[in-house]
């Protein structure tokens, strides 16, 4: 079934304002459909209570809604619900996971951690700090020459018997490239390493199944897939999770506490200390339901077709260089680019005044942008199921206008 962006737009209040709004910044955060707002509103206005505590009706309603959200999210990624941990987002997931592994003694001095040259800072920096604290060797699988894809020919050289953790993103938030995670997972498991997969740029944009990825841990934010901000997920394989210490400590995770020590509950409760983002989790559950109704595969078809169209049209503009995965089958729906003689920030500013929202910068993947791709910053257009070919026309017009404004002075 094909996605009809015009009817999709009607589900999103932000597009009902009247004036054209080419929102090409979903990779930063998506827009929110009314169904998500409605369930969150219902929680705050009809059954607000803390979960798993209140022995009164609304307390039970809140607990049920929260638990239901967990079941929905688990189903969405092909997981069991007790393997799904709600967090504050991908960054919180990544940091908490590193703590869980560290507190559980998974790594020791001299061990190796393998990641890639294209990771988001949310994934990279917690690993850098883990390596620093424990004297680990952090290695990065590079990009293939003249390509935005990883160099798979060196994977076996990087993943060795010393490797304890392998961390790889499913899709790049800069180039859109979809990585062959299953292939990396297989290599990692051969040497007994644990595999972490950051699916933040992919989930809700292409089908994500934890079993197909072969990873031991998967994490993402809710806000790039129609969910609210401040909610995210850490998924872990049950048998691995059961062996791990909590990464964050506090109320709600304990069985018994004395002044000297505490014992912890089973999974996933032991990893959710404190009152969670209840409304956020309920909202994420609704987002998942909404995306399933449209069909994630249909969404990916739509986004990658638009990304392909955009890349082609941008390449036709003299002075524009596209930096993205150009095989549309391997692109999640993201096209980055640079315009000769105009800094991406200026491009984004002029586009913004034309009603076209894109993002410029290093996109929290500074090593990828500045070292691997060799540019100080890029402009990025990211596509979703509410985008139309008209949005791309507006993008092209805006870039030409920026060139017109700037080129008069570069002579």
């Amino acid at each position: 079934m094909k996605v009809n962006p015009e009817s999709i737009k009607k589900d999103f209040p932000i597009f009902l304002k009247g004036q054209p709004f080419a929102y090409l910044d979903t990779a930063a955060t998506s827009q929110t459909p009314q169904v998500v707002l409605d369930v969150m509103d219902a929680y705050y206005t009809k059954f607000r209570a803390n979960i798993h505590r209140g022995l009164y009706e609304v307390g039970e309603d809140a607990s049920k809604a929260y638990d239901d959200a967990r079941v929905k999210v688990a189903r969405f990624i092909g997981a069991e619900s007790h393997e799904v941990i709600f967090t504050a987002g991908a960054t919180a997931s990544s940091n908490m996971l590193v703590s869980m592994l560290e507190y559980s003694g998974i790594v020791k001095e001299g061990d190796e951690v393998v990641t890639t040259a294209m990771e988001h800072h949310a994934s990279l920096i917690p690993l850098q700090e883990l390596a620093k604290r424990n004297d680990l060797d952090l290695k990065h699988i590079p990009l293939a020459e003249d390509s935005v894809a990883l160099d798979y020919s060196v994977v076996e050289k990087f993943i060795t018997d010393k490797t304890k953790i392998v961390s790889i993103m499913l899709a790049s938030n800069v180039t859109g490239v979809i990585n062959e995670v299953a292939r990396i997972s297989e290599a990692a498991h051969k040497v007994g390493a644990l595999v972490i997969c950051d699916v933040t740029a992919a989930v809700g944009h292409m089908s994500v199944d934890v079993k197909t990825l072969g990873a031991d841990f998967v994490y993402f934010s809710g806000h790039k897939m129609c969910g609210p901000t401040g909610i995210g997920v850490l998924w872990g394989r049950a048998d691995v999770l059961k062996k791990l210490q909590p990464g964050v400590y506090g109320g709600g995770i304990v069985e018994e506490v004395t002044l000297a020590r505490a014992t912890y509950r089973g999974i996933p409760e032991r990893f959710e200390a404190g009152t969670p983002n209840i409304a956020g989790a309920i909202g994420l559950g609704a987002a998942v339901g909404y995306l399933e109704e449209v069909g994630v595969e249909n969404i990916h078809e739509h986004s990658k077709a638009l990304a392909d169209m955009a890349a082609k049209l941008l390449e036709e503009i003299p002075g524009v260089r596209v930096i993205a995965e150009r095989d549309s089958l391997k692109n999640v729906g993201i096209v980055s680019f640079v315009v000769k003689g105009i800094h991406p920030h200026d491009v984004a500013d002029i586009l913004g005044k034309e009603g076209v929202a894109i993002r410029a910068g290093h996109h929290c993947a500074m090593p990828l942008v500045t070292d691997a791709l060799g540019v100080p910053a890029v402009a990025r257009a990211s596509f979703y199921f509410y985008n139309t070919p008209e949005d791309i026309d507006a993008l092209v017009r805006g870039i030409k206008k920026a060139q017109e404004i700037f080129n008069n002075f570069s002579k």
Partner: protein
Amino acid sequence: MRLFVVSKRRKKFLTILANSMEELYKENLLDHNAHPHNKRVIEVPHVEAEARNASCGDRGVLMIAFNEGEHVIDAAFQGEGCAVSQAGLSMLTDKIKGMNAEELKLLSPGDIYTMLGVQISPGRVNCALLGYEALEKILKKPLREKEPICLH
């Protein structure tokens, strides 16, 4: 600012500029961006500081040579980044020549916006104040000390 003969092409461009909402991209700013003033390295003893705008990758190194009376005898910059940040550095180096340390300390972000002559939206504040940030760092240093040139 350079003087232009208004050509037909330029007239068309000026119309586009006037009709557009590009308050930010005024001629003077674009001209400084394309043809920056004082974009060079100062060879004599001077003080320098770097400022970065991590979100968009702007970078600027401001260099100031002071005489014994703490007057600016030369100012220059190196850097890369968006038009607002680089034109800002260019204009700032022009503006501060001849000023003394006390006058430099009295400069405020408001003075920088006035100097740029364009409307600065909240999203561009860090770009606009890149040179100012480097200047503030310089003013915290001993002004007569020679420092190694560091572009990274």
